[in-house]
């Protein structure tokens, strides 16, 4: 134990000595340089500061290169750190060519540090003077997101405002969506034909908001299914979706006053594999020949395989997704397609509940803001560039700043 302590003390002593040696001759380093060209160069200036908008534990180091990178034999810049509380120093990183900044994430908020940067030329370290002392700290708010917060609050505020005003009984108008009106028709047709309906809530798990949107629509469809006493078949790709879908359908059957008609087998797990799932769904479609197919959720390449198979068996098909790349295939192969936002609005529409409908009005405020911003931006820029208007330039810059997320 004593021996260990001695070794530790020796290490601290030697490293302190090395640190003092490395700091003391800083100014003479340049004069020691044997390279004629490097002696012409000025010192490296180093700045170290707490990294902004982070959770602490990080200091950013920046330096200027007076021209060392152009010297032959230049191997990189060495970032050298000194803990000014303990007096220990260590090399942190040799940065790649062209780099003038380094984010040191191996610091503690409880210590203070000083940084030097050395140009490594022909095996020599041409050390800068140390930076000012700096301490890392965490920020309680990410300043870059101020406009995200303000705009988010405005849109969320609008949604909540309309929800509340709908709750108070204000009549809200919403236009019709053809795809949603087709849902009852599709379930009705399945009932008449005595054939089941097929529901696929996409191929993603519950951590995708589109799956949740699909399930909320399932709630409404399942109520109609329960009332009509139609059969529903819902294969799922993820076990969590199976559990959530069962809760949804069960609740719908209870609401429709037919709890006895519900059974868990309406929803069944197939496989987590994307195309294995598709192979099974295709099989179900051609063998059970559902009269109506609903594809509502997140889909990838399989969208077209399923929609075309459904088309080949003559089923009424209603699809909806927020995957822009898959929308064309649904549009081409299905009778009705809920495009993007319509998928998320559908359950509110179908529920007919004022508060839910109110939330859609709130989203419309968001769209209005988007359109106004785009148009104001264009007008401001046009005027600013045509007549050199300072105030319009100010508006242009403000808009750029507002919507910059980087």
């Amino acid at each position, binding site marked *: 134990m004593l021996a260990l302590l001695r070794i530790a003390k020796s290490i601290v002593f030697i490293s302190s000595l090395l640190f003092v040696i490395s700091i003391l001759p800083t100014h003479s380093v340049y004069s020691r340089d044997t390279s004629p060209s490097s002696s012409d160069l000025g010192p490296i200036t180093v700045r170290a500061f707490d990294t902004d*908008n982070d959770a602490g534990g990080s200091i950013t180091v920046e330096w200027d290169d007076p021209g060392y990178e152009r010297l032959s034999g230049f191997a990189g810049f060495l970032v050298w750190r000194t803990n000014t509380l303990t007096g220990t120093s260590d090399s942190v990183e040799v940065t790649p060519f062209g780099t003038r900044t380094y984010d040191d994430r191996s610091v503690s908020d409880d210590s203070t540090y000083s940084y030097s940067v050395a140009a490594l030329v022909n095996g020599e370290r041409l050390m800068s003077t140390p930076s000012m002392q700096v301490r890392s700290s965490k920020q309680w708010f990410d300043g870059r997101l101020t406009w995200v917060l303000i705009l988010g609050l405005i849109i969320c505020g609008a949604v909540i405002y309309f929800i509340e005003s709908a709750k108070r009984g204000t009549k809200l108008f919403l236009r019709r969506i053809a795809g949603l009106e087709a849902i009852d028709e599709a379930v009705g047709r399945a009932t008449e034909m005595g054939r089941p309906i097929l529901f696929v809530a996409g191929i993603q798990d519950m951590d995708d908001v589109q799956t*949740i949107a699909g399930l909320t629509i399932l709630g409404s469809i399942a109520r109609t299914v329960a009332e009509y006493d139609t059969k529903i078949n819902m294969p799922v790709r993820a076990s969590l979706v199976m559990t959530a879908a069962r809760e949804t359908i069960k609740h719908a059957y209870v609401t429709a006053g037919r709890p006895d008609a519900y059974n868990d087998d309406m929803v*069944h797990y197939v496989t987590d594999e994307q*195309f294995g799932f598709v192979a099974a769904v295709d099989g179900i479609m051609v063998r059970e020949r559902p009269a109506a197919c609903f594809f509502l959720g997140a889909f990838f390449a399989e969208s077209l395989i399923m929609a075309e198979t459904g088309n080949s068996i003559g089923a009424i098909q209603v699809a909806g997704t927020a995957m822009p790349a898959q929308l064309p295939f649904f549009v081409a192969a299905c009778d009705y397609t809920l495009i993007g936002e319509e998928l998320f609005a559908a359950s*509110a529409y179908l529920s007919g509940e004022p508060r839910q409908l109110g939330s859609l009005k709130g989203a419309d405020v968001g769209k209005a803001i988007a359109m106004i911003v785009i148009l104001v931006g264009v007008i401001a820029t046009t005027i600013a560039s045509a007549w050199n208007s300072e105030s319009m330039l100010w508006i242009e810059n403000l808009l750029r700043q507002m919507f910059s997320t980087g």
Partner: protein
Amino acid sequence: MKRQIPMLILSAVGTLLVVSVFIPSARHWQEDASLYFDIIAVFAFFLGGGNLIRVHAEKVSRKSAGWIYSVVTLLGFGIMLVTGLFKIGNPNGIAGDISQAGSYFQLLFQYVMSPLNSTMYALLAFYVASASYRAFRAKNTEATILLVAAFVILLGRTALGVLLTNWIPAQFSVLQVPNLAIWIMNAPNLAGQRAIMIGISLGVISMSLRLLLGIERSYLGGDN
């Protein structure tokens, strides 16, 4: 009680995660939530896998139509479980990585699952052809616009597009099919994509708020 506590959990977790976006030191909550999801999902798989076994076992025991295929499915499932859990044939034994090449589990993946996967994916070629055929019989303005745009883009990506329109003089080069295809991608297509994406994000915001405020909760079941 059966709905109130889940509602409370939902609202609290959702709100905390929204807040965590703005607070740098709370951002790790998002990572933790994602790890929680992974863990919950694997527990849920015991329900899903159990359901798979039950559905197919019932078919076999009842000898209902197609029961023989259920035997095949159960066999396949069982073989993967045994080879994967005990890492049979894994060059590094039970301590080896599951994706280690040469294990029976990986061989089954490589020679059974992988070709099945690629072929099912490749079937898209047939379906894209049948969907295109239907699109060719465009009946209204919208379908015609879709068809024309698709045709120009498709042609623009082939040598035929170059051959057909390279006679167009340079000052009207924008009308050459490959250039027209690029213009469609960069202008009207981009505009449509943007409208869709802005709409989607507002849709997600309004739906998320309905969920967090407890207005939309059908997926949580009733009080039964």
